[in-house]
Structure formats: structure tokens, C-alpha cells
């Protein structure tokens, strides 16, 4: 019964979302307040219906209803409850439903918290959100129905791909989608502005909090995905420049650019047309990512099923929205009054510099990702573009950008003083040089690039803190006054400093682990030891063990310090999942400070020997800690008083605070 309720809710949502797509925009055009007023309740009802459908699918998974095809293919009655629930989106149909759930969630948020928007803008935005939801609901009902039933129902399901049976699946896709799909709001705002042919600084103030929210979640989603791939796949890598990773990274790069250009627009009402274009591009890249991942044109862990019909359908959606929005942009951009100009050396100039490099970098990633697909489609030649391509193109483009990061927040609006800013950054620069020198000295001049990279990371980190120090007057005024001023600084200043600091931390992690990490592949017998960094690793032997839906062989290792005293024990395993007859590797990882030991088991050899791959990964956790700092920076910025105008939900909180 419950799958039918879900099915029915989906159909009802599709009908209702058509109303949401059509009526409000006509109302906005005719200045009819009653028609515009349909938008908010329709958006809320659509969200409620999709949530109901989603809940029904979760229910089918939890009770292992094997009359539903989707549950048979991706679940198993013996599977732990957590993986039954996360399995809902560990497949094509369910993940598309999650996509739409989050899309309608954002529409509902706009409907709820957009009371301060001009009614026509709000109606248009919700209509455009409705168009996107219509397209994807059609896609689900036509090609990817999660509620398809079969009779007779089998006794047991085929289980979820063991690689996906992990806590990572509970966190990574929802976070990533919240980011990906969150940019739809920016897209809708941009399309609404183009339809109205009117745009001002207030528009940027409304769009910025949505951009920040989406960016924050996308940052978290990508970082989480990276860590998940790192520990689950057992390959020891944290980023593979895999097309699917690029698919999520491109909207992040464009979204980062959008975040910065919207700032210029809000403060100086310049870069209007460019900001609108970026908003369109960012969500277009999200759609492109959805297409790449869901259509089966790529070879990846993320592509669950290959069905040409689905690919064509998403391609049609992609063409319609990207082509349509860009055409609208081409027709209407002229009508948007262009903003004021500014001196190249200024805060605006720095943000343009940021945008220039970020969008160019996005373009290189886009070309590297799409070129093999295009070439195969045109000539039939199968090629692959690997990490060296991206390192060689993306890397050099990031260097000037990173070097410029500390300057941006210190430059004044309109007309900046580059020399003055450089003087104020002298301390950070000197310390960065010191770090470079130290690395050169410790490696006897062998690791020039790494020394440079670490210097750059220190420069970004300290340069970001310099802004806080200068603005609060640390060192110039008594400590108490400085502290008071520091507390009183706008939240967005903290947010900027924190996010930029996090960027430096991530860079430090990347350079550290790439340069100083070691990898050894050796055959070991019980009792053998292997030197790793300043430790020795002892192999103790293999023990069989059984989990809820798998059996495993655990390789036990002991980590000995230089005095041969055991400091840690590590277990790495090879699992076998009988439901899918599929083996997986469970890496053994221990963290010491910011460094990690990473052990992955290979095949067994004769005489109880085993092939082991052992990595020493210094600084590796900094990569993800930096991303967390970036997320925190986004969150702190969101609390800024200035943005509360754009997010009345916060205003209510502020009011209760004032009353208390």
C-alpha cells in the first residue's frame, strides 16, 4: 500500500508543480497579486508531497518490502538499519528523488523566508524553481520510477553495493545535493531578474545568503566525498580528478567566484551582468554534473545504471535550461543597467582578479572533463585525461590566485593602496619566507617546489589572520581594547578570514602529503617489521571475523616506536559480501596528530605471507580540516547582521535576542 501512496504523492506533486510554474509568473506579468500569491503555498505543498513520497520509499526500505523493484535491487533484509535507510539514495531512482526533494526544500525555504522580497520577484523565482522541479519530476515519473512493483515478490533482495555500505553514504550525497541544488535558487533569482529586466544591489543582497548556504554544503559534500573515497576505496588517494569528482568541483569553483562577485555587486553595484551570468553558469554546471553522473556516459562508482533513454532525457533537460537561460541572458542582458567602474587596484579589482582566475580554472577543468567524451563521440577514439593534465593546467592558475588572497580583504573599495597593503602584510610575508627557508634547509634544498608550496600556504593562512589583527588593532592599542574591537568586528570579516585561513590549511595538507608521504608495497610474513617514517610496523597475522552481512579476514599490525615499544595497533581487512559475491578492501587507518598511517591488504601469498601496501601520510588530515574551516567561515558569514535583511528568519532570532 505505502508504495502506492508514494507514487500518488509524486503524481500529485507533478500536477501541483505545474501550477507553481505557470500561475505566479503570469501574475507577475499582469500585476495580479492573487495569482502571484499562489506561488508560496504551492511550493510548500509540493515540498510536503515530495517529502511524503520520499518517506514512503524510506519506509519500503526499512521494512524490506521486496515487492518494490528498487528495494530488491539495492537492499537486503540482513543489512544494518542505517544502510537500509542510506540505501534509499544509493541508487539511481532514489538519488534522483533525493535531488528533487532538496530542490523543493529550497523552493519551500524561499516561500517561507522570502517575505521581504518584492512580490513580483518572489513569484518569478518560485516559478523558475517550479520549472526545474517539473523537468525533474517528469524525468522521475517517465524513466526512473522508484516505486515500480513486481510480482511475485522475491524472498530476498540483492543487497547494496558493499562499497556504498558505509557511513559516508549517509552524509556525502545529501550534503553534496544541498550544495549542488542550492545553487538553483541563485539560478532562479538570475532568471527572474532577466525576465523583469531590472536588477540592483538589493538583488545581490538577497542572492548572497543562498549562495553562501549552497557553497557551504557543497564544500562539505566535496570534502566528505574525498575523505570517503580515501578510506573506502583503499587506494590511498584523496582526489583522482575523476570526471565525477570534477562534476562536483566545477560548480564549487564557479560558486566561489559567484560568492565574490555578488559581494562587489552588493557593495558597489558593479559587475551586475557578470554576476547574473555566473549565477546561470554555476547552476548549469550543477546540471551538467547531474547529467554526467546520471546518464552513464562515464565509468565510475557513481554511475549506477546505464540506460540510454535516461541519458537523453537529462540531456534534453540540460539543453533546455542551459540553452534557454543563456539565450534569455543574451536577449535581456543589455537591458540591465551596467554598474559603475572602478580603479584596477581596489577591493573590486581584487575580486575581479579572483573571478578571472576562478572562471578560467573552471574552464580548464570543464575542457579536461568533456574533451574525452567529445572526442569519442566525434572520432570514436577513446582517450583518457588524467591527473597530470589537471595538475599542469589547474595548478599554475591557482598560484597567482592564492598569492593574491591576503591582499583582497585589505584593499579599500574604489581606490586601494597596494604599497600600503604590502607593507602591512610584511610580517606574514617574512614568516612565509621563513617557512620556505626552513623546508629548504630540512630537505637540503631538494624539495624546492614543496618549500614554495608550504611558504604559499603559510602566506595564505597568516595573511588571512593579518586582516583580523589590523582591523582590531592588535599590537597598537591595549590588549583589552583590541579584544573588544575584535569581538565587535562584523561576522563577515571573521567569515572571510576563517574561510581564507582554511584554504591555506588545505593547501598545506596537499603539499605536505604529496611531498613527504611515502608508499611501500611489500610482501610480509607474521613477525616481519617494516620501517615507516620514524616508526616500525609489525605484521602479526590474519584472523577471520564475521560481520552482519559479510565475512572478513583481518590483518593485524602493531606500530612500534623507535624504542620498539608498541604505540598503536592497526587492523586492515579484506571483506567478502556473499549477497553480491563481492570482495572489498577495508583500509586500516590510524591518526597521529595531523598525520595518518594507512594500510591496505593485498592478496594472500603462500606460507601465510601477504602483500601489504603501507602509506605514511603526513599532514593529510589538514586537507579536510581546512575544508571544515572554509565551511565554518561560510557559516559565520551567514550570521552577519548585514545578511539578516536578506534572511528574515535570522531577523526573528535577532529580535528575540534584543528582547531578552
Amino acid at each position: 500500500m505505502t508504495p502506492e501512496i508514494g507514487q500518488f504523492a509524486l503524481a500529485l506533486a507533478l500536477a501541483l508543480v505545474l501550477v507553481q510554474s505557470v500561475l505566479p509568473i503570469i501574475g507577475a506579468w499582469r500585476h495580479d497579486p492573487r495569482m502571484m500569491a499562489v506561488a508560496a503555498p504551492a511550493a510548500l505543498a509540493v515540498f510536503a508531497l515530495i517529502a511524503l513520497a520520499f518517506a514512503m520509499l524510506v519506509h519500503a526500505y526499512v521494512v524490506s518490502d521486496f515487492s518494490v523493484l528498487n528495494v530488491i535491487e539495492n537492499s537486503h533484509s540482513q543489512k544494518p538499519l542505517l544502510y537500509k535507510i542510506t540505501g534509499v539514495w544509493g541508487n539511481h531512482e532514489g538519488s534522483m528523488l533525493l535531488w528533487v526533494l532538496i530542490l523543493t526544500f529550497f523552493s519551500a525555504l524561499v516561500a517561507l523566508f522570502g517575505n521581504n522580497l518584492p512580490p513580483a520577484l518572489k513569484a518569478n523565482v518560485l516559478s523558475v524553481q517550479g520549472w526545474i522541479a517539473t523537468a525533474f519530476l517528469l524525468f522521475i515519473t517517465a524513466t526512473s520510477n522508484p516505486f515500480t512493483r513486481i510480482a511475485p515478490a522475491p524472498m530476498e533482495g540483492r543487497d547494496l553495493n558493499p562499497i556504498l555500505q558505509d557511513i559516508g553514504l549517509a552524509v556525502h550525497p545529501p550534503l553534496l545535493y544541498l550544495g549542488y541544488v542550492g545553487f538553483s535558487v541563485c539560478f532562479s533569482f538570475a532568471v527572474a531578474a532577466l525576465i523583469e529586466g531590472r536588477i540592483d544591489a538589493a538583488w545581490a543582497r538577497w542572492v548572497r545568503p543562498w549562495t553562501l548556504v549552497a557553497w557551504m554544503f557543497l564544500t562539505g559534500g566535496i570534502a566528505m566525498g574525498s575523505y570517503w573515497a580515501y578510506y573506502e576505496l583503499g587506494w590511498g588517494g584523496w582526489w583522482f580528478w575523476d570526471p565525477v569528482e570534477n562534476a562536483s568541483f566545477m560548480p564549487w569553483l564557479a560558486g566561489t567566484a559567484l560568492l565574490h562577485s555578488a559581494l562587489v555587486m552588493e557593495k558597489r553595484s558593479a559587475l551586475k551582468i557578470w554576476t547574473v551570468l555566473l549565477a546561470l553558469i554555476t547552476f548549469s554546471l550543477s546540471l551538467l554534473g547531474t547529467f554526467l553522473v546520471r546518464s552513464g556516459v562515464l565509468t565510475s562508482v557513481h554511475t549506477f545504471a546505464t540506460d540510454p533513454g535516461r541519458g537523453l532525457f537529462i540531456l534534453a533537460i540540460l539543453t533546455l535550461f542551459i540553452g534557454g537561460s543563456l539565450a534569455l541572458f543574451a536577449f535581456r542582458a543589455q537591458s540591465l543597467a551596467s554598474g559603475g567602474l572602478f580603479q584596477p587596484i581596489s577591493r573590486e579589482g581584487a575580486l575581479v582578479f579572483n573571478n578571472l582566475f576562478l572562471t578560467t580554472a573552471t574552464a580548464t577543468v570543464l575542457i579536461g572533463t568533456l574533451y574525452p567524451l567529445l572526442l569519442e563521440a566525434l572520432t570514436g577514439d577513446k582517450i583518457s585525461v588524467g591527473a597530470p593534465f589537471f595538475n599542469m593546467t589547474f595548478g599554475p592558475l591557482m598560484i597567482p590566485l592564492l598569492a593574491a588572497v591576503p591582499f583582497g580583504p585589505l584593499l579599500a573599495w574604489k581606490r586601494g593602496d597596494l604599497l600600503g597593503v604590502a607593507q602591512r602584510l610584511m610580517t606574514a610575508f617574512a614568516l612565509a619566507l621563513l617557512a620556505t627557508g626552513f623546508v629548504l634547509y630540512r630537505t637540503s634544498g631538494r624539495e624546492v617546489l614543496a618549500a614554495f608550496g608550504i611558504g604559499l600556504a603559510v602566506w595564505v593562512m597568516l595573511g588571512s589572520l593579518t586582516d583580523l589583527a589590523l582591523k582590531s588593532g592588535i599590537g597598537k592599542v591595549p590588549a583589552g581594547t583590541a579584544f573588544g574591537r575584535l569581538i565587535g568586528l562584523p561576522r563577515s570579516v571573521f567569515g572571510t578570514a576563517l574561510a581564507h585561513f582554511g584554504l591555506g590549511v588545505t593547501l598545506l595538507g596537499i603539499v605536505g602529503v604529496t611531498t613527504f608521504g611515502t608508499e611501500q608495497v611489500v610482501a610480509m610474513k607474521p613477525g616481519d617489521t617494516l620501517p615507516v617514517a620514524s616508526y616500525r610496523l609489525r605484521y602479526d597475522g590474519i584472523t577471520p571475523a564475521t560481520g552482519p552481512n559479510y565475512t572478513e579476514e583481518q590483518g593485524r599490525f602493531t606500530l612500534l616506536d623507535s624504542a620498539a615499544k608498541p604505540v598503536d595497533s592497526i587492523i586492515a581487512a579484506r571483506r567478502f559480501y556473499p549477497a553480491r559475491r563481492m570482495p572489498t578492501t577495508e583500509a586500516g587507518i590510524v591518526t597521529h596528530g595531523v598525520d595518518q598511517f594507512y594500510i591496505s591488504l593485498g592478496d594472500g601469498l603462500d606460507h601465510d605471507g601477504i602483500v601489504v601496501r603501507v602509506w605514511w601520510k603526513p599532514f593529510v588530515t589538514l586537507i579536510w580540516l581546512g575544508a571544515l574551516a572554509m565551511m565554518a567561515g561560510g557559516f559565520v558569514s551567514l550570521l552577519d547582521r548585514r545578511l539578516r535583511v536578506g534572511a528574515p528568519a535570522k531577523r526573528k532570532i535577532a529580535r528575540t535576542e534584543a528582547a531578552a
Partner: protein
Amino acid sequence: MSRKQKRLAVIGGALGVLGLAVALMLIAFSQDIRYFRTPADLTAEDMASGARFRLGGLVEKGTVVRGAGTRIEFAVTDTIKSVKVIYDGILPDLFREEQGVVTEGKFNPDGTFVADSVLAKHDERYMPKDVADSLKAKGVWQGN
């Protein structure tokens, strides 16, 4: 600076960055494009060029030989021709005889392929797309 000069400065800067990016991409493309081949596709030029390739096909039955330590030899076949592959490292979980693999590496002058990475399909129903397409094109595909 006048309005025109400012605009020119921005456009000039943008063109500069784009030019840099295009130059970097051209260099990278000329160095880091790896063609996918199955054994029957290979030409004498491919084998002699010393370039990196992705070689894909099925692991031929009865050819997997373990050497000392972590060294492994096996043959990759598309059922028309087969190529001997030498690999030093850990094989993926789903590496089995008569299953699809994609290996990446270079040819030795003696015609053996020295792989530095081996990828296998990652679940029961899945075959690397490049391999599946090639086998279908050659009419030796046996899956669905």
C-alpha cells in the same frame, strides 16, 4: 585612468589569463593524453612509440603467474589477440580470470606491457565501459 582604459585593462587581463590557460592546456594535452587500446587494436607504431596507453580486455584464463614478492604477470586478451602484462603491486579486489580489466602503462621493447595501475570492474554487473564497448564492436561480447 579613463573609462576606456579601465575597460581595456580588464579585457587585457582576462585575455592574458585565458591565453595562459590555453597554453597550459595545449602543453598538457600534448603530454598527457592516453589512448585506450585493446590487444587487437595495437599497431606496431603503438608498441614502439614508448607512449603511455590504457590497455583493456579480459584477463586470459590460466595466464596469471605470481612472481617474487608483489610481481604479477598475466595476459590481457580481446579473444582475438593477447598481450602479456607485467605489474608490480596490489591487484584490485575484483581482479579475476576472464573478467574485464583496464591496465595503464608502457610497452617494453620486447612487446610486453609494463603496467603501473590495474583497474577492474567494480561490481558483479559492471564491466569497464571502454572494454564492454570494444568487445561489443568486435562481436565477442557475451554479457547483456
